């Protein structure tokens, strides 16, 4: 398919760009503004240069939150990606059961984030919650003051919430594999594992790239669900980057430091997104579409 070179194409983008100008570009520039200034009594601003950045980069709270956020993302990816692939491979391929299961597994994805947190908060209550009561019946109290238990709870909650995303994308990817591939593998006498490794997995590349990108980003920005369950505690053990940022900017009302955290946060998002974008939409393919 050929794309035409057209310098008037910008007119098609104009409405969308005007909207994100208000809803993203101007707010982001405001954040940049905060990050290089200090304000007194709201009205007077002073140039601070890189002061806030130096202060944030030297702050143990910031590193703590960053490390916790990255660890949480790594943990949920390690659980959700293999589990999602496994379920997708073993998912009923067609028929009523397939349609029913697809509808059911999508429900957690469409649950408001606050309600996700609420469901899990209740689930671990010692007397009213299923998990809390089960733990009590086994004689181990469900201790939400233990950081390990809290982390496992959040990882379970996030996996309950989002593993289906990986399943849906991989399932769609698997369905797109032509049947002839499986026949060829069968003729070669390939084992179940060989079929997975040499036929299915390579064809899941795009689905997995998108799934990992989305799961990384959405877990890296986690706020509401985790806050409802843990309020960032015990201590600061589940205070993630978004919590740290909102805490700094709205509770301590430290706009300069909040701005600097925001910029660093945004740069991480930008770099990771770019890495994935260049894999999802390689430049070569774009150019072969005919840059005349």
């Amino acid at each position: 398919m050929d794309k035409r070179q057209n310098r008037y194409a910008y007119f098609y983008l104009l409405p969308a760009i005007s909207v994100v100008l208000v809803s993203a570009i101007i707010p982001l520039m405001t954040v940049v503004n905060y990050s290089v200034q200090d304000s007194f009594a709201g009205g007077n601003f002073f140039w601070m240069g890189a002061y806030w950045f130096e202060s944030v980069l030297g702050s143990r709270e910031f590193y703590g939150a960053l490390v916790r956020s990255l660890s949480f993302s790594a943990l949920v990816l390690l659980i959700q990606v293999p589990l999602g692939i496994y379920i997708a491979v073993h998912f009923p391929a067609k028929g009523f059961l397939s349609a029913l299961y697809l509808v059911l597994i999508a429900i957690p994805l469409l649950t408001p984030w606050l309600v996700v947190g609420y469901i899990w908060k209740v689930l671990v209550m010692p007397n009213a919650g299923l998990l809390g009561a089960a733990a009590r019946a086994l004689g181990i109290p469900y201790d939400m003051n233990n950081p390990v238990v809290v982390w496992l709870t959040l990882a379970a909650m996030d996996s309950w919430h989002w593993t289906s995303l990986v399943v849906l994308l991989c399932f769609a990817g698997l369905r797109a594999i032509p049947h002839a591939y499986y026949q060829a593998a069968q003729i070669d006498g390939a084992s179940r594992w060989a079929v997975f490794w040499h036929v299915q997995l390579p064809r899941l590349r795009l689905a997995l790239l998108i799934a990992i990108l989305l799961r990384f980003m959405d877990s890296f920005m986690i706020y509401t669900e985790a806050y409802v369950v843990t309020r960032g505690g015990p201590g600061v053990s589940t205070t993630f980057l978004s919590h740290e940022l909102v805490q700094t900017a709205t509770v301590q009302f430290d706009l300069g430091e909040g701005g600097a955290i925001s910029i660093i946060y945004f740069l991480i998002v930008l770099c990771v997104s770019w890495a994935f974008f260049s894999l999802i939409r390689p430049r070569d393919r774009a150019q072969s579409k005919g840059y005349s």
Partner: protein
Amino acid sequence: MKRKIPLAATLYVVLLMVPIYWLFIMSFKTNAEIFGSLTFWPHKPTLENYRAVLSDYAWYKGYLNAAIYVCMNVALSVLVAIPAAYGFSRFRFFGDRFLFFGFLALRMTAPAILLIPFVQIFSELNMIDTHLGVAIAHSFFNVPIAIWILEGFFSAIPPEIEESAKVDGYGQISIFSKILLPQIAPGIAVTAFFCFMFSWVELLLANALTTVNAKPIGAIMTRLGGVLSANVALLSAASVLTLIPGIIFVIFVRKHLARGFSLGQVN
């Protein structure tokens, strides 16, 4: 392929449904039963919790507020995304790749980053506690999502159709309205559904940008529910009601779930 019960998938579905089931039965229990002995179904089912939520304006206006700003956001996002997606799918121009990536990066931006500037900008504009304010705020992720999904739908239509229409004497506007839009209509519906859901589930911004008149149900749950923190039964009923749009949604777009959730990249 042999026919057998898919064990792993079934187990997975059951595990996913357990928390939903627990929420569902709690919404039909009384607080006395919830905090009394552990029961696996409501022994004395009651509709009192639903009656309480649906008869109190302070509660049910939260659903109306959320529905209003979500619908405004969907209209705004889809409307501006249609021409943009068309432009990306059909033309090459300086910076096209960069701009297409830029929209993706906005989708990936954490709402917490934009929270403070939003509060400040909307205060200046007197738009705090308005539905339009939340609708505009949510467009920072929904416009990119809509553009990416629609770009996939536009790219699936061969450009030859437009070229032959041009030969037949159609102008650019009538090609768009009479030929492309009818073909893209299912794609627009899918996009609108997804924008609806992504705005429906967000709370951080929706809560921060509203005070009284436009508060969504989630914020009302934390505020009223926080005061009555022992009222698990009432909060459960309110939560179950927030799931209804998602359940209706998933039945309509079950064939397009992968497409929508993958930003149009996996069909």
